[in-house]
């Protein structure tokens, strides 16, 4: 009995089942149930990894090590809570006439397949399969972004497809170059793209090929991460798609893409030994943080604003991994975790707030606390958490990143501080009137599922105060593995 098999099989099976099931009465429940099974399998997998340490499966084609084990659990967990949130949310969307039965079928089926593809991307040991799974994860969400068929959503989905397609094509070229280097170093064949083999002989890889390969890989997967200047698809796709999709795109897909960059960085670092990959990531990360913070302050659409906030945070993580070293890497991994939790919680609250107002424009959303205190507090606390207020986990990771930056790259800290300040002023200033004050909002037709919001925020709070020892151990081991 192999838990990994179940982790990968449940969502793929769920995708097929829900496509056959269609838009019956219990489709939302079935979706949540399949996600719960996936979560259970990944908890089982985690328990085995805690007990026995890293493992490889099926002729080394798949593997679980400290770097991906927590991401697998996180993905399955947020996948499950989002499926809970989407039950009432999508029902309200259907009542508003935005979703037809066919579109509901598409949504549920593709949601499961999307989760499955991300889990394949996280656990595969083969960098070629990683590419295939990343592309497949994009393909499953393209039709979901355009599911409302409004002109804006069609535009967003087209941009998403074309820009990510071009980006991912560059990543494919990078992978081909990597294979070329591997062929020279350890011989060709099916094993030559296995990450564990490449990592063992990374110092044998040709530096000239690897530096070019890493440029393509960083730009390619960086498109998916949302790095400036290849981020244009991200705010549109987040703002125009259904909110559950915005939550999983922000919370999960961006993480998976960054994970792909990290895997490639380990190899490039080993081959180059001149710190070039790290410096490139510092540069891209810093530009991303600053540009996103200033764009963020000019937004009127609430989902767009938080999409830019995701870009900013992904930039911060890229910057942290670029700095390298045990502390910055640790902080980057922690930030990946808490950002995924907090940002998806914010999108849950924002989704219901926009449904109440019948609009995503921030000036139409006023006085959430009066109509539904839970949505209001969820949004307020989530915003405070994402802005790095103690005692939430984002504070801990941002603090670690900033202190390391002061030591390793002091010139970068003023930019970071200004960007964080601008983001703080913008988001806090916009969220306050949305939460407090007078209201003209309508109550919702179905009671929203807001438990996930507070579970996520509770976990982010816990990670700010106390990190469980095994999680701490993984972060440390993974931080050493990423090196830099």
């Amino acid at each position, binding site marked *: 009995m192999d838990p990994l098999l179940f982790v990968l099989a449940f969502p793929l099976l769920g995708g097929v089942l829900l496509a056959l099931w269609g838009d019956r009465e219990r489709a939302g429940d079935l979706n949540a149930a399949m996600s719960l099974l996936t979560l259970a399998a990944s908890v089982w997998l985690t328990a085995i990894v805690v007990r026995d340490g890293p493992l490889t499966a099926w002729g080394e084609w798949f593997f679980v090590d400290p770097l991906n084990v927590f991401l697998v659990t996180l993905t399955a967990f947020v996948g499950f809570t989002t499926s809970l949130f989407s039950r009432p949310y999508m029902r309200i969307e259907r009542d508003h006439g935005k979703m037809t039965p066919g579109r509901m079928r598409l949504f549920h089926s593709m949601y499961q397949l999307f989760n499955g593809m991300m889990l394949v991307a996280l656990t595969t040991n*083969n960098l*070629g*399969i990683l*590419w*295939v799974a990343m*592309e*497949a994860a994009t*393909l499953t969400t*393209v*039709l979901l972004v*355009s599911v409302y*068929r*409004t*002109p*804006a959503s*069609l*535009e*967003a*989905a*087209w*941009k998403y*497809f*074309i820009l990510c*397609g*071009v980006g991912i*094509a560059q990543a*494919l*070229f990078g*992978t*081909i*170059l990597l*294979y*070329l280097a591997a*062929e*020279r170093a350890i011989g*060709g*064949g*099916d094993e*030559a*793209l296995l990450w564990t083999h490449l990592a063992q002989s990374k110092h044998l890889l*040709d530096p*000239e*090929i690897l530096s*070019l390969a890493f440029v393509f890989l960083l730009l390619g997967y960086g498109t998916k991460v949302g790095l400036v200047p290849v981020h244009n698809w991200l705010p*549109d796709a987040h*703002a*125009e798609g259904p909110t559950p999709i915005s939550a999983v795109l922000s919370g999960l897909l961006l993480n998976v893409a960054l994970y792909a960059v990290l895997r490639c960085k380990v190899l490039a670092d080993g081959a180059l030994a001149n710190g070039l990959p790290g410096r490139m990531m510092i540069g891209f990360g810093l530009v991303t943080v600053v540009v996103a913070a200033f*764009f963020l302050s*000019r937004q*009127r659409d609430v989902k767009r604003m938080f999409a830019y906030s995701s870009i900013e945070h992904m930039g911060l993580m890229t910057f942290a991994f670029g700095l390298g070293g045990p502390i910055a890497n640790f902080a980057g991994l922690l930030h990946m975790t808490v950002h995924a939790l907090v940002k998806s919680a914010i999108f849950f609250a924002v989704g219901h707030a926009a449904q109440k107002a019948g609009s995503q424009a921030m000036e139409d959303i006023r006085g959430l606390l009066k109509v539904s205190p839970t949505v209001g507090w969820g949004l307020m606390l989530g915003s405070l958490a994402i802005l790095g207020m103690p005692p939430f986990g984002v504070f801990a990771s941002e603090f670690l990143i900033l202190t390391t930056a002061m030591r390793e790259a002091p010139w970068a800290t003023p930019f970071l501080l200004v960007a964080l300040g601008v983001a703080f002023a913008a988001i806090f200033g916009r969220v306050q009137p949305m939460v407090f004050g007078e209201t003209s909002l309508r109550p919702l037709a179905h009671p929203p599922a807001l438990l996930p919001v507070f579970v996520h925020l509770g976990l982010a709070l816990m990670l700010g105060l106390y990190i469980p020892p095994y999680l701490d151990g993984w972060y440390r081991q993974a931080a050493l593995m990423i090196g830099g």
Partner: protein
Amino acid sequence: MTSLLSQSINLFAVVLLVLAFAMIAQRRILTLIHLFTLQGAALAAATLIVGYLTGQHHLYFSAALTFVLKVVLIPILLHRVILRLNVRWDVETLFNIPTTMLIGIVLVIFAFNLAAPIAGLSTSIARGTLGIALACVLLSFLMMIVRAKAVPQVIGFLSMENGLFFAATAATSGMPMIVELGIAFDVLVGILILGVFMFQIREQFDSLDIRHLEKLKED
């Protein structure tokens, strides 16, 4: 005989590049699809010859896959789409061919410079053509940027995929089979989704002009 065949790899590589240029300069959508089909055929032939010369039998399979996908399935799909959308005789006027060609030439020089040091390290029989492969990728990229209609953009996307497949054959002895299958599957699903998508765009805007899709700007 062998030297003649290895020469013919270079010949097919040049055919690929010339076709990429022809696609950039082509205004008519129907001709564009024919050019794309030809490019697929040239790619399949090049892969077949590399496979024969190096004795890498999985390249035969790869060539067959390319043929089925790029010469048969995708062109059929594209023909059906343009027939149903009634854009078969569409002509795109709004771009400047000479300027685009000049930019294309610069891109080719850039690609050759970029690939030169790496091509020398490759052990593949077709290593001299890595620069051409990269040039094809960049030219398709250019085509996607300058075109304002949905179908030419999609063809640019597909021809970029052709360039990448050729790069894999030119630089290495072909990617592992399972990866190649996965890529082919992604391409096929992608083109199906794009097909659905073009109908959605058409339904919404009564046109396949991508310039309608420029409303989402930063304010």
